[in-house]
């Protein structure tokens, strides 16, 4: 029987959104269970690895803008995105190399301010004061797609110290040759400040999208660190050969560029312009739906002023671009 013939509007009338209080309460209970179980191991491993790749990504990928008021730190912010391809097998290698729950190349890690879990907010007007900016909403939505829910996660701040020995050990383990780890990294604090992040979800029967908006995150590192050299090390750790890593490290404007590692074999990407700003459009293999069918995914990242945006979902590139362009500038 054809699905369309069964699409009886009468039967759809029985659908209701769950009570938000019930949804919040259930999510909280599940979170407590997650904490008791130490969060899911795969998630922790991925996050830990991602943190561990801090030397690989954090220390080099967030752009240097200016020396802070204390003249002790370089402050990094995101102004544009650029893609660098890497072999996903290397990500798995990094993940398996992380035996210390996120301390892959770190000695110490401290949470200064806990961002807490994402919380449901009923409207963007309710989200804006906490986000610290006027939360935007696209005026264009692809056919069938509708605004579903909005969440906000508060500001967070952490700091960590890097271990030169651990970094050398990691490079050895990854069989990365010809890289000199600079001295003077040990014991210095690197601070990461995550601003409040607003996530708005859209969905239709078959598709979904998420618009993430935030102010730029900031990373402060001790002044004098050679970001280009650290960037090159990071690129080598991601699996790039020395020539390519050096070329990209030199060509990248570290002052305002966040390098986005994209898996070699599953994506295509290109630079685009969104409301006059440079953006990065990535098409992925998407995800498997409940029917087992694969749907192509698209992700667009761009910045506008001090704001960072990421729009991703099971939408076409054109739809994503139209949604992004329809945000109030």
């Amino acid at each position, binding site marked *: *029987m054809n*699905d369309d013939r*069964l699409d*009886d509007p*009468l*039967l759809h*009338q*029985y*659908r*209701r*959104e*769950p*009570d938000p209080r019930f*949804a919040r309460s*259930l999510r909280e*209970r*599940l979170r407590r*269970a*997650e904490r008791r*179980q130490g969060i*899911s*191991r*795969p*998630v922790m*491993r*991925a*996050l830990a690895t*991602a*943190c561990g790749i801090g030397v690989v990504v954090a220390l080099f*990928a967030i752009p240097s803008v200016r020396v802070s008021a204390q003249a002790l730190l370089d402050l990094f912010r995101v102004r544009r995105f650029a893609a660098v391809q890497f072999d996903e097998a290397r*990500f798995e290698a990094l993940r398996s190399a992380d035996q210390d729950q996120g301390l892959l190349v770190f000695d110490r*890690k401290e*949470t200064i*301010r*806990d961002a807490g*879990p994402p919380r449901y907010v009923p409207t963007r007007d309710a989200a804006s004061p906490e986000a610290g900016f006027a939360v935007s909403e696209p005026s264009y939505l692809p056919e069938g797609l509708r605004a579903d829910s909005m969440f906000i996660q508060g500001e*967070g701040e*952490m700091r960590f110290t890097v271990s030169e020995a651990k970094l050398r050990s990691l490079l050895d383990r990854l069989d990365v040759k010809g890289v000199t780890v600079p001295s003077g990294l040990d014991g210095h604090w690197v601070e*990461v*400040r*995550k601003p409040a992040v607003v996530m708005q*979800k859209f*969905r239709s*029967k078959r598709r*979904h999208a998420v618009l*993430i908006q935030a102010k730029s995150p900031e*990373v402060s590192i001790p002044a004098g660190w050679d970001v280009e050299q650290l960037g090159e090390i990071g690129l080598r750790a991601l699996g790039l050969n020395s020539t390519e890593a050096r070329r990209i490290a030199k060509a990248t404007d570290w002052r305002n560029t*966040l390098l*986005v*590692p*994209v898996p070699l074999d599953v994506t295509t990407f290109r630079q685009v312009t969104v409301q006059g700003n440079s953006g990065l459009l990535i098409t*992925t293999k998407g995800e*498997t*739906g*409940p*029917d*087992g069918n694969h749907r192509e995914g698209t*992700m667009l990242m761009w910045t506008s002023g001090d704001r960072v945006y*990421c729009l*991703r979902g099971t939408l076409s590139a054109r739809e994503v671009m139209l949604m992004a362009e329809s945000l109030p500038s």
Partner: protein
Amino acid sequence: MANGDATVARLWLWATRARATDWDQRFAVELPRVYNFFRYRVGPGPVAEDLTSLTFEKAWGARNRYREDRAAFGTWLFTVARNVAIDHYRSARATVSLEDAEEIPGGSTPEEIAERRSDETHLGRLLARRTERERELLALKYGAEFTNREIARVTGLTESNVGTILHRAVQSIRAEWDKEPENE
């Protein structure tokens, strides 16, 4: 910092669509589907919420065993939901009356609210008259918003069988809806 500590981690995850599962997102996407599955199955109200909670708690307890490469998350979750529904009926032998359960539906005017409530009660009554199998398929179709193919995958029925059962069920409901007065 919660959920993995670092901005960098989040950016990394945003950027690479890391294979690690985003449980917040999964929850946000699947909650309305599971909740509505049980709404169609047992009616609105606390029982649907209880069974929804039970489904998520069971799924969360076993989520580390879920393998993304083996089954779509929705399929896996609804396998849990169906078992929860089966256990519910087995243990209580309770046929929760759809017509008894009420909730305040949305609507902008008292007239609209009254009309929607009346329609909902009437529809609930008609759903409650369906066979177990029909109700399950209707719940998967209209509550969980599965396609016939997805329902076939979850239930083990053939796609054409799913279509036939659903077609008959919808025809019956439609006929009874048109025929019967709302306040019997």
